[in-house]
């Protein structure tokens, strides 16, 4: 077989592949029929075309550093008491520093040993003495801060993933961006407020005993007993006095489900602890029978029932006058785990399904109208050669669609615009070649020579022109988000596809015409 035929076969193979990959997308939202032998992957539609929600979250990682520092401080206090280090003050003024005031300066050595041994990430930054009191300041090492921050972001990403999975969004995309951002693409989500509430709850579950020895009224007047604080009920906002120490936290949770109370038809959330959690819960309830145990989520008291008896079996319930939706979302959040730090919404874009439908329709309408104008123009201007260019253009569009499907790229509205533009631009390579062929023919060359010279002379200009557009497209991809990236992708694929169709496919057809069909006059 000669090279020319081999080339023809390769071209045919590319085209067949293009058709196979592009075909499923033409069924739209319908199923690909049984018996279809090719791939079944359809082109993914961007959120702007199918509707859905785009969210950018920022993990407030500083809060994770702060809470680690707070637990270090309380841990350190306990250790100092144990080791008889006499301190008058141990506080964290800023998220990264601790100040400890020693009443007995001689205790400094003991403190240094303790810190070096148990808290190696604390570095002494300042030490001063005044009136017999020595103040030592420690700072958390930069590497430790960085670790906590990155762990917080990582864990937040994991939790967000879990929650979305449990919520049941089909084909979500959840990716980290930069140091502390999470970008979510949630197709088909139509209730943005509910989705945001689901993601933003840090969901820190705590169980705390109610301080029943002191009165709330007294505390409200500013007389808060040490070890206790005032919290507020979620419903009705009444104040309630709680012990500061949590007897249990939600990290010992195994499962959470929404249940319906049969008598009042009211939904509640049932939580089950893991083995360790069950044991602790049983101990706590048996030691505190008759007292009230408050259940807190993110600092708000959901309920504070009286413990009637020791609870074994590791189950508890959370009530709070929920709607079905709220109870089911709360169960999801508890199952998925808490966020290590709060998140804030930086960007939120929601496209309703009706706009997406309209956009698809308008995009394709303009593609067809623009395409038709070009197709008719080419036939009028270049006659038979124009018809070839038109066929090649159709092949080009099929290849772009096929490539989008096979690469798993997302088609967005600007992306659709990119295909429309490609239609205009793809013709450019043909026009360049045809104008060259015309010039050669005018010089009296034969059809064969004119075709050869036409392609050869036009090549550098075509390559340069397309590579420059490709450079612009690549920059665009780097900078863009969502829809704009979709545009960069279709533009790039369009450039490559049109180079192939104009320089390889179209050339092959014309060489076949002049070499094998011995056509002597080119209709151009």
């Amino acid at each position, binding site marked *: 077989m000669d090279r020319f035929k081999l080339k023809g076969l390769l071209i045919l193979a590319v085209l067949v592949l293009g058709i196979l990959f592009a075909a499923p997308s033409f069924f739209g939202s319908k199923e690909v029929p049984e018996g279809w032998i090719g791939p079944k992957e359809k082109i993914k539609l961007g959120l702007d075309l199918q509707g859905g929600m785009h969210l*950018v979250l920022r993990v407030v990682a500083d809060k994770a550093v702060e809470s680690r520092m707070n637990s270090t401080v309380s841990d350190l206090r306990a250790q100092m008491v144990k080791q008889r280090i006499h301190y008058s003050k141990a506080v964290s003024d800023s998220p990264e520093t601790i100040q400890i005031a020693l009443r007995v300066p001689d205790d400094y050595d003991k403190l240094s040993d303790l810190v070096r041994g148990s808290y190696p990430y604390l570095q002494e930054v300042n030490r001063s003495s005044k009136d017999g009191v020595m103040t030592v300041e420690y700072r958390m090492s930069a590497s430790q801060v960085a670790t906590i921050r990155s762990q917080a972001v990582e864990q937040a990403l994991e939790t967000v993933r879990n929650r979305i999975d449990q919520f049941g969004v089909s084909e979500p995309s959840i990716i980290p961006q930069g140091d502390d951002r999470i970008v979510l693409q949630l197709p088909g989500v139509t209730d*943005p*407020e509910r989705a945001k509430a689901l993601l933003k709850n840090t969901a820190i579950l705590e169980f705390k005993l109610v301080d029943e020895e002191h009165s709330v009224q007294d505390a409200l007047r500013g007389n808060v007993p040490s070890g206790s604080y005032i919290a507020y009920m979620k419903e009705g906002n009444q104040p309630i006095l709680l012990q500061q120490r949590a007897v249990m936290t939600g990290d010992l949770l195994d499962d959470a489900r929404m249940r319906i109370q049969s008598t009042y038809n009211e939904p509640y959330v049932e939580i089950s602890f893991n083995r360790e959690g069950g044991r602790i819960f049983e101990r706590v309830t048996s030691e505190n029978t008759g007292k009230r145990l408050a259940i807190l989520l993110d600092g708000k008291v959901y309920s504070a029932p009286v413990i009637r008896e020791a609870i074994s079996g590791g189950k508890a319930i959370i009530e709070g006058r929920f709607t079905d939706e709220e109870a089911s979302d709360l169960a999801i959040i508890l199952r998925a785990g808490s966020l290590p730090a709060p998140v*804030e*919404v*930086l*960007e*939120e*874009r*929601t*496209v*309703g399904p*009706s*706009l997406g439908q*309209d*956009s698809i329709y*308008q*995009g394709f*309408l*303009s593609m067809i*109208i*623009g395409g038709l*104008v*070009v197709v008719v*123009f080419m036939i*009028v*201007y*270049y006659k038979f050669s124009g018809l070839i260019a038109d066929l090649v253009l159709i092949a080009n569009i099929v290849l772009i669609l096929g490539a989008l499907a096979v690469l798993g790229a997302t088609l967005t*509205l*600007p992306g659709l*615009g990119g295909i*429309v*533009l490609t*239609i*205009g*631009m793809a*013709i*450019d390579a043909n*026009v*360049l070649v045809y*104008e060259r062929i015309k*010039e050669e023919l005018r010089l009296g060359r034969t059809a064969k020579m004119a075709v050869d010279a036409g392609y050869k*002379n036009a090549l*550098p*200009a075509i390559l*340069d*022109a397309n590579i*420059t557009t490709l*450079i*612009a*497209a690549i*920059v*665009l991809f*780097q*900078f*863009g988000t969502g*829809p704009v990236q979709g*545009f*960069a992708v279709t*533009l790039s694929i369009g450039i490559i596809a049109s180079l192939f169709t104009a320089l390889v496919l179209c050339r092959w057809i014309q060489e076949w015409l002049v070499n094998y069909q011995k056509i002597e006059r080119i209709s151009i």
Partner: protein
Amino acid sequence: MDIIRPGTQIDFMKYRKAAFTLSAALIIISIAALFVRGLNYGTDFTGGTEIQVAFSKVVKTDEVRSAIEPIGLAGASIQSIGENRDNEFLIRTPVEGDTGGETVQQIEGALKDTFGEENVDIRRVDVVGAAVSKDLKQKGFLSLFYAGIGLLIYIWWRFKISYSVAAIIALAHDVIITVGIFSLTGREISLPVIAALLTVIGYSLNDTIIVFDRIRENIKKAAGSFDYSSLLDSSISQTLSRTLITSSTTLFVVLALFLFGGSVINNFAFAIMVGLIVGTYSSIFIASPILLFFRQEKE
């Protein structure tokens, strides 16, 4: 069929002074417009909340305004978009972030109360926080800059530094005038518009490169002494029919996008349309005459 009769040679260089004057005037007007009127940045770049809402009954802009007035949003703007019969509006307020989420609910509630729940279709909501919008703005304009640098290097490599500088000047010319027209018409600069400007950069360069390629080829052929100015004229003339055909086919499809593509993509199509026209003009009347200018300076 030919739109330009073969062998035609137009004395483009003769018009270079007129072209430079025209372009200088357009650039001055554009820059003046940028200073005086500024740009109408979209929510992408200012931050804030943008709601696109469609009603299934006839609603006037004033009715929408009075419906959401009680919420007391400072600086909210309401704009009717699309055809009149679409009853579609764009509501924008500078409020953003977590308060934005509430704002959306408030506006949605107010509209549903006033016009009936079944008549209100919230089609699109964008809430962009200040951190993101600042980021996008910076990245958007930087990307234009980076694209310019990348292209400068590529053309330098493929041609000569003088060609490269001439092409980049023509590009800057196109972008400044397109942005100037956005300023004058008060059209919104959004993310897709920046994408369109980058596309304009790529496309307008196509035309320039194709002329430059012909110039290089003709210089090789001439191989001896030749009149640079008339060589430029013949190079542009030889490629003129291609320039006109490609620009007009591309213009047709973009026009289709502009007319039928819908509200979301309207400004995007407009930017490409303007950029294409200015780009075609500059590749003929600006880029090559700059080459001539460089040549004369050298001699």
